């Protein structure tokens, strides 16, 4: 190594540059403190001028350097494909370009549409208002109506409202049978309802017992399931509740 102070300085700067470039991905990332400041532009300028003037630091006389440069210069020329390859590639490029808008057309089109650059929004499918209403608003409204109906039914049952009468003889028979079954199944099971008829809804009168929870495990106790009711049944329920209120 040269003892020339400038060459020593140049070697030190190269070492700091190594440290800088290595530090970007390792030392600095790990949060370690840097021992030396990064190489400044003025130091880079000094190093560049020194490399111009110093054959030792520039490696001008180095045999390996010369071989590297010579091989780099001659390398690619021997590795380039033949003319047929480039002709084919040129056709490929021009075919692809034929499908492109003319230069500037894209920009003009975007400027005309009030947008500087293409965005996802510009490609969004916009649905007509009527279709959006049918898709979202109507199901939401129906769901909300069912919710209100369900809540009002629960409130009425808790306030001891007059039960709805069974509408047919067969239903009367089925309710009677269920009453008997509930009396046996629910007896003594729930202390909270011990003063009520077994299985009866809390706060409901004796006649309300047909609205009570059944012993059917699929139906939650204390609630009337609306899942199995048809739209007509729900309409009738709503009309009846409106009339009573």
């Amino acid at each position, binding site marked *: 190594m040269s003892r020339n102070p400038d060459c020593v300085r140049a070697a030190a700067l*190269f070492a700091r540059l*190594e440290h800088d470039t*290595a530090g970007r991905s390792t030392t600095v990332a790990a949060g370690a403190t840097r021992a030396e400041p990064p190489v400044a532009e003025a130091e880079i300028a000094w190093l560049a001028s020194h490399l111009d003037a110093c054959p030792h630091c520039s*490696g001008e006389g180095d*045999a390996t350097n010369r071989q590297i440069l010579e*091989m780099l210069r001659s390398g690619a020329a021997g590795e*380039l*494909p033949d003319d047929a390859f480039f002709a084919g590639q040129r056709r490929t490029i021009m075919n*692809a370009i034929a499908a492109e808008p003319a230069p500037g057309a894209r920009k003009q089109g975007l400027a005309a549409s009030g947008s500087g650059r293409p965005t996802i929004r510009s490609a969004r499918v916009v649905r007509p208002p009527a279709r959006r209403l049918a898709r979202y608003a109507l199901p939401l409204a129906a769901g909300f109506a069912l919710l209100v109906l369900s809540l009002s039914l629960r409130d009425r049952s808790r306030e001891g409202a007059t039960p709805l009468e069974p509408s047919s003889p067969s239903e009367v028979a089925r309710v009677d049978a269920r009453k008997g079954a509930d009396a046996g199944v629910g007896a003594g099971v729930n202390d909270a309802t011990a003063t009520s008829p077994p299985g009866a809804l809390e706060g409901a009168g004796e006649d309300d017992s047909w609205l009570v929870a059944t012993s059917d495990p699929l139906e939650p106790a204390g609630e009337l399931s609306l899942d199995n009711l048809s739209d007509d049944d729900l309409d009738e329920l709503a009309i009846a509740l409106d009339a009573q209120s």
Partner: protein
Amino acid sequence: MQSEGPAESADDDEIVGRVQQGDRQAFAVLVARYQRMVFALALRMTGDRNEAEDVTQTSFMNAFRRLADFRGEASFKTWIYGIALNECRMVHRRARGDLPLDQISEPPAYAGGGHPLDRVVLRKLVARLPDKQRAALTLRVCEDLSFREIGALIGASEASAKVNYFHALKRLRGWLAAAAGVKQPSPGEPGPDRGGIDP
């Protein structure tokens, strides 16, 4: 708009003007004029022929798309080189880590001085240089650009371009020496791909 005459003899600025006015066939002249240079640059930068082919095609496609922005402040050659360098950087980032340096130990032809120097090995080593050093070395040696032009292309000063060039050579010498067992890399010796000088 059709070209009004043969474009082969026209200069780059004139051809660019024709393409900007809608004569897209005139672009074929620019492709033919710079295709080999872009391919050679991409081959040296990526070290892979297939990637060089992709880079060349993508570079010209991008050049066509951006031609409306070309103002002629730099030459078309410098401009297309810049686009190609960007593409090479993207390809290089995707491929980074594919080839650890210690795998470049295939039997090389030994040059004078005991250093292994083989075209394939050298190409792989160059491909492992940080972006700016690789670009500075390639553009200087193979394209004979000035350090000022190189600096403009890699987004650095002229001095920084020069230092990157010499730094690249220094690293290559160090790696080759280490591979030949002449000198073990010091703890501060760089691994590949850690970026270039960016003061």
